[in-house]
């Protein structure tokens, strides 16, 4: 029996603005999960705070809607404790690159096997239109009445420098591409980021729509293991490349923790040590 998208819908009706692109991301993810045939009970979705943070409310899964900026370390804990589950992390540009920005490099170092959807609308949507770490220089927002006075962060180059083992950018205008990328990300063994450029309808940021509309798929011959080349492509803003920039294989946190366990249990002949033995070792 094939699973359907509908199985992944929770009973809660989304409260996003009419026409918000979050709807497309949600239905795309629901479709992908059905196609990958992952039982809803084996999925954990963790989201941060923001419009995008509401994602967890609408997916039929074990869903955790945490605090601002901490979706990634929470997800990491889920996966480290329960390697059998499929873990999805969802959050916005502020959540992920602002308050939560310090966590990405460390999840990448651990290469924890989860998929992180970062939905970048270049604004703080839920709090109604303040500058985010990706709002471009000079843009006027509620907290930059005279224009933003900081450079915007370049997310993809940063993820590359962190050596996240799967990095893709999707354009919300092309939902089938998003589905492909999310599928590839979930299938990838290790940490995967799908970074989705997704202008906010209600608090639009100057020039963003145009940038997004200029997007183009990364050249077909791009070698995904070539970090420096990926970096070069990522620094282009017109065209703005979409698709998979980087994908490498390296042991996941799960793999490495298993090795640790093996080493730790080697002296006990590869068996779990009993509590009694542990206590006796302190005698």
């Amino acid at each position: 029996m094939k699973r359907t998208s509908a199985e992944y819908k929770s009973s809660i009706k989304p409260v996003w603005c009419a026409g918000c692109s979050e709807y497309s991301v949600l239905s795309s993810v629901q479709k992908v999960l059905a196609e990958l045939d992952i039982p809803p009970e084996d999925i954990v979705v963790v989201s941060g705070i923001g419009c995008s943070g509401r994602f967890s409310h609408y997916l039929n899964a074990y869903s955790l809607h945490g605090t601002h900026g901490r979706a990634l370390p929470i997800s990491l804990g889920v996966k480290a404790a329960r390697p059998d589950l499929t873990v999805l992390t969802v959050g916005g540009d502020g959540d992920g690159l602002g308050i939560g920005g310090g966590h990405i490099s460390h999840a990448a170092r651990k290469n924890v096997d989860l998929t992180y959807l970062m939905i970048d609308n270049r604004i703080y949507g839920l709090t109604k239109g303040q500058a985010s770490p990706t709002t471009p220089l000079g843009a006027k927002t509620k907290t930059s009445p005279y224009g933003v006075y900081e450079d915007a962060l370049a997310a993809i180059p940063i993820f590359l420098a962190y050596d996240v083992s799967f990095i893709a950018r999707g354009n919300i205008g092309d939902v089938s591409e998003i589905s492909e990328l999310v599928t590839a990300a979930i299938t990838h063994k290790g940490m995967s980021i799908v970074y989705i450029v997704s202008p906010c309808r209600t608090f639009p940021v100057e020039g963003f729509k145009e940038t997004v509309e200029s997007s183009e798929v990364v050249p077909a011959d791009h070698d995904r293991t070539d970090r420096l080349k990926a970096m070069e492509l990522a620094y282009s803003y017109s065209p703005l490349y979409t698709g998979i920039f980087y994908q490498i294989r390296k042991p996941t946190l799960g793999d490495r923790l298993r090795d640790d366990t093996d080493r730790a249990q080697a002296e006990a002949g590869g068996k779990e040590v009993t509590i009694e033995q542990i206590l006796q070792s302190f005698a």
Partner: protein
Amino acid sequence: MGNTEFKSDVDFVVRIAGEGGEGIISCGELFAQAAARTEYHVFTYITYPAEVRGGFSMIQIRIRDWMIYSMGSTVDYLVVFSQQGYDRTIGSLGKGGTVIYDPDLVKIEEVPGATFHAVPFSKISGEAVGGQRGKNIVALGVLGHLFSMDRQVLEKLLQDRFGGKGGQATEINLKSLAVGYEAARQAAMGCRFHLSAPSSQKAVYMMLSGNEAIALGAIAAGCRFVAGYPITPATPIFETLTRLMPKVGGTAIQMEDEIASISACIGASFGGEKVLTPTSGPGLQLMGEQLTLAAMLELPLVIVNVQRGGPSTGLPTKTEQSDLKFAIYGTAGESPRAILAPSGVEDCFYQTLRAFTISEHFQMPVIILTDQSIGYRKATVRIPAVSNITVVDSSVPCEEIDLPSPDRIQTTNRLEPSSEELRGYKRFKDTDDGVSPIARPGTPGGQYLATGLEHTEAGRADYSPSTHVKMTRKRFRKLKALSKTLETNPPECYGPEDAQIGIIGWGSTEGAIREARYLAAEKGIPVRHLHPKVVSPLPNRQIEHFLSEMKQVLVVEENYTGQFAHFVKGLFGARPIEIHKYEGVPIAPEEILSAIEKVAGILDEEDISRV
């Protein structure tokens, strides 16, 4: 009666003092470890500087033929490596004490009645191993001779610590040990005491620090996920667990900071694991937001706060009991949690077990509040009857679960929904005691939303007044249920019931108060002692009862503002005498005794005036 319990023929204190980086602590620990293998009980206390090198550092070892409750207040044998070590500890030398010092580094002033031995540790080490690296082990050899310890025992310990025979470090240390023994013999030091006969009874004892006891308690409780970040003085808990967790099939991961640590624990707890994160005050401050998230998601979570001197970076290597109110009130909004304060090294093990029981049963965060003095103190601890660890069914009411003891340990797991409850599953069902079954990811039909927003029983976000009122009450009902459970526990009271003077303490002061009580009893002043282990919520009725029976009550704690006393006053309307020590070092039995004597004097006068 306490008094007989206190009778002891052997009871002496050894202190080694000098600068950080001189190997003082390892010298003392090896000595203590060897002593612990005999029939005697051992108790250590450590002071070290916040710097990696330099600054005053010392270790104190008490040895006794009976259970030890405190570090002791005067020193019988003093080994000093530096002038600072001498200057800052000579005042603690007891009557007839012995001082062993390096004459090239320390200028002494003779103390009447004391014995002084000059042993040039530095020079001896230099000659024997060509440097200062061996000087602490030279001292160990001197102590070995002084207490006629079996040299093989010490050699074995050195090999265990520095790698097998033949290794360079081991060889240097074995050499140093030998010259130490020799030096003492040459200095014609008489053997003071025999620490040699290993006892058969002693096989059931471990030598543990409070930090290690917590790590072991977590493992015994079934905790298999730990995330942490190093911070003095909690680091050893985490270090011990990184070593042990993989052995028992668990996971201990180091995170980038304390926020990430507690976040990972929340994730793992959501995943169904029993989790723990160890930290100290500065780290707990960073965890506040996630702590309330756990409370709101009703996830079990155990946090250990090994308190140190504050505020801010403060006195990172010193002890203080100044995080009590912070642990209770330190987060925004109102949410329930429990705070446990172990009273000693052994109790660290048992309160950790209890913390997991409460946390898993009531699905709320539990904070274990210890402090530097307990965390670094080492003591001989009876090995509990591990074969008696049983997991009781998650439906067993909390008050029916035995308090963990050396004879019997019951652990529990969180309540899971029945297949019936999974139909139209309400994760946050508003039940009689507020506890609702929690589905483990992977359970078909158990999918639910856990949101930090206010939510309905089904988990849906809802900010209506009625939902907030209902769910606030639901969450606090768990705390009320816990309070009720506490009232049925045996009272944590010691000493004669007809005493007129009562002392209330919490946490690590237990031993000092206990000894003060014994000392007072010897002077004919009966004292009763209340020492609650769960410090929030408090066992109200027990405390009220205690207060009502006493003429005068002292509250002893190691902080400036009198945090526990505030509760005694606020909740029970009592007007206790407050004893605050806030010097970064533990309070001594004598300090408490002198307060008791003052109070007894006043009560006597009152009696007289009443005649």
